[in-house]
């Protein structure tokens, strides 16, 4: 017996428009799907962590329990920006590791279809005399007057900053990253958009914040994902089939952004990701070269580039060359975002940090169908939420059990 943790069951809903389902419907579909996938019920679950960022419903965990099982277990409602789902997963991992439960259920759900531009609030001006508000003592809205608060604009600058530091990152390169993810999405039936797009289509689409055009931005969609985590000791008591399909959580890491010069001017999404990656590789005993696939947080095409470097998939400063070598394509040496990524699969915020784990786990089980990465043994799932929080999970196929080829 070890203190290893395993994903026993996992499920994601189709991402896209779900006009006839509310948050709880989607969360219930994901949770019940994960329980059924793991061959357990709510009666087995000892701890629940649930996340929803923008729905404004309060305790999504308890609302979910009301529909699928009020068993009286502790519920942790978590919010951590775009890392909310990963935080829910990390929470149940900690509870199980602490010996407080044998099984934990983590759920993330969001309804964002038609949400428009995130991060931007309408400019409101007061009439009458100027009045200073907020920590900058501003007499009016800062967004648009002193830089931008839109997510597309912030992450555009994150990518441009990398280009300034290392060179070679231009509009066309970022668009080619998006071209890759849209091409990958054609094989994923759960993606919100499964349309291949040419480089020209991507570059000539509506510009949101240079160099990010619309298809280079994450898609606002509805969706949910859930995972059942089990302790090593409990897994050993389960059926051969359950053990065969269980996926080892070789590392579960959450970091926040340590202080860096300029981090309060433009969010530093790099340092906390590097820190999380370093901790995760160490905990898992693997290196970037061991990864058979990576799902990373491509909230914008400009973000994907910097995370090649932050996750150490390339040498420092080498992200442009890494991409140009073809490495992150699904037939490359380190396939990245074979799900289609957030740009085409969609980004229902709180669901994302579990949905990316679902994608990796599905490949490790050999159940990814036409988009299966052959013989995948180790994968990494990464999310980052501005503010900031970064979640990294390293997953491994069950040892000694050969997964069927898809």
């Amino acid at each position: 017996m070890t203190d290893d943790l395993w994903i026993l069951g996992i499920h994601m809903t189709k991402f896209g428009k779900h006009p006839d389902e509310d948050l709880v419907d989607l969360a219930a579909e994901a949770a019940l799907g994960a329980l059924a996938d793991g061959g357990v019920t709510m009666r087995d679950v000892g701890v629940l962590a649930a996340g929803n960022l923008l729905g404004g419903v309060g305790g999504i965990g308890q609302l979910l329990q009301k529909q699928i099982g009020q068993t009286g277990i502790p519920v942790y409602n978590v919010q951590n920006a775009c890392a909310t789902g990963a935080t829910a997963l990390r929470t149940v991992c900690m509870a199980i590791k602490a010996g407080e439960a044998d099984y934990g259920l983590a759920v993330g759900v969001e309804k964002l279809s038609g949400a428009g531009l995130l991060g931007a609030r309408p400019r409101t001006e007061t009439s009458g005399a100027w009045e200073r508000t907020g920590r900058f003592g501003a007499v009016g809205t800062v967004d648009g007057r002193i830089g931008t608060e839109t997510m597309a604009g912030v992450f555009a600058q994150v990518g441009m900053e990398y280009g300034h530091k290392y060179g070679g990152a231009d509009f066309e390169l970022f668009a080619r990253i998006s071209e890759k993810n849209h091409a990958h999405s054609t094989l994923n039936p759960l993606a919100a958009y499964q349309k291949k797009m040419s480089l020209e289509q991507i570059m000539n689409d509506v510009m949101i914040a240079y160099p990010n055009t619309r298809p280079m931005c994450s898609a606002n969609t509805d969706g949910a994902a859930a995972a059942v985590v089990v302790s090593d000791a409990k897994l050993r008591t389960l059926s051969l089939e359950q053990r065969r399909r269980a996926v080892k959580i070789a590392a579960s890491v959450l970091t926040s952004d340590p202080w860096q010069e300029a981090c309060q001017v433009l969010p530093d999404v790099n340092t906390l990701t590097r820190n999380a990656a370093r901790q995760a590789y160490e905990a898992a005993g693997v290196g970037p070269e061991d990864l058979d696939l990576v799902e990373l947080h491509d909230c914008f095409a400009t973000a994907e580039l910097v995370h090649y470097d932050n996750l150490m998939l390339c040498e420092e400063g080498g992200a442009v060359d890494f991409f140009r070598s073809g490495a992150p394509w699904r037939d490359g040496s380190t396939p990245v975002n074979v799900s289609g990524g957030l740009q085409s699969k969609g980004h229902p915020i709180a669901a994302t940090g579990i949905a990316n784990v679902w994608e990796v786990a599905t490949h490790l089980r050999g159940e990814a169908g036409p988009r299966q990465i052959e013989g995948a043994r180790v994968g990494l799932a990464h999310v980052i939420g501005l503010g900031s929080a970064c979640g990294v999970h390293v997953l491994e196929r069950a040892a000694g059990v050969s997964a069927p080829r898809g």
Partner: protein
Amino acid sequence: MTNPQIPFVDYLELRPEPHLVAHECTSCAARYFDRRNGCAHCGGRDFRAAPVATTGEVRSFTIVTFAAPGVPVPFVAAVVDCDGTSVRTNLVDVEPSPDVVHLGMTVALTTYVAGTDAEGVDAVNYAFKPLGRAEQ
């Protein structure tokens, strides 16, 4: 007669010449533009006013063409490295085009009237503009 003027944000000082003033931690010299409870870097509680260089280099930028209602577009948002202190700003007096704005360009602080309130007071905001070759 010109209107009385106030700075748009606390960290802009209009006189004698417009410049930004950071809160600098007296222990570790980390700089901040917002009201502080303590230093995020070292935990220090004491700060001194530190004037920030009024010229710098564009370290990153974006051209925002899609923004919140009421925000005029397009505009150039940027991070300017002012002699080691990073500043968030808009770039003005430059065509908002990737053919014109470029990483590493040298820029200088400038001010403009962002609005006038009901009592006739102008709020003066800062931005950065390209520094002509002759001025460099």
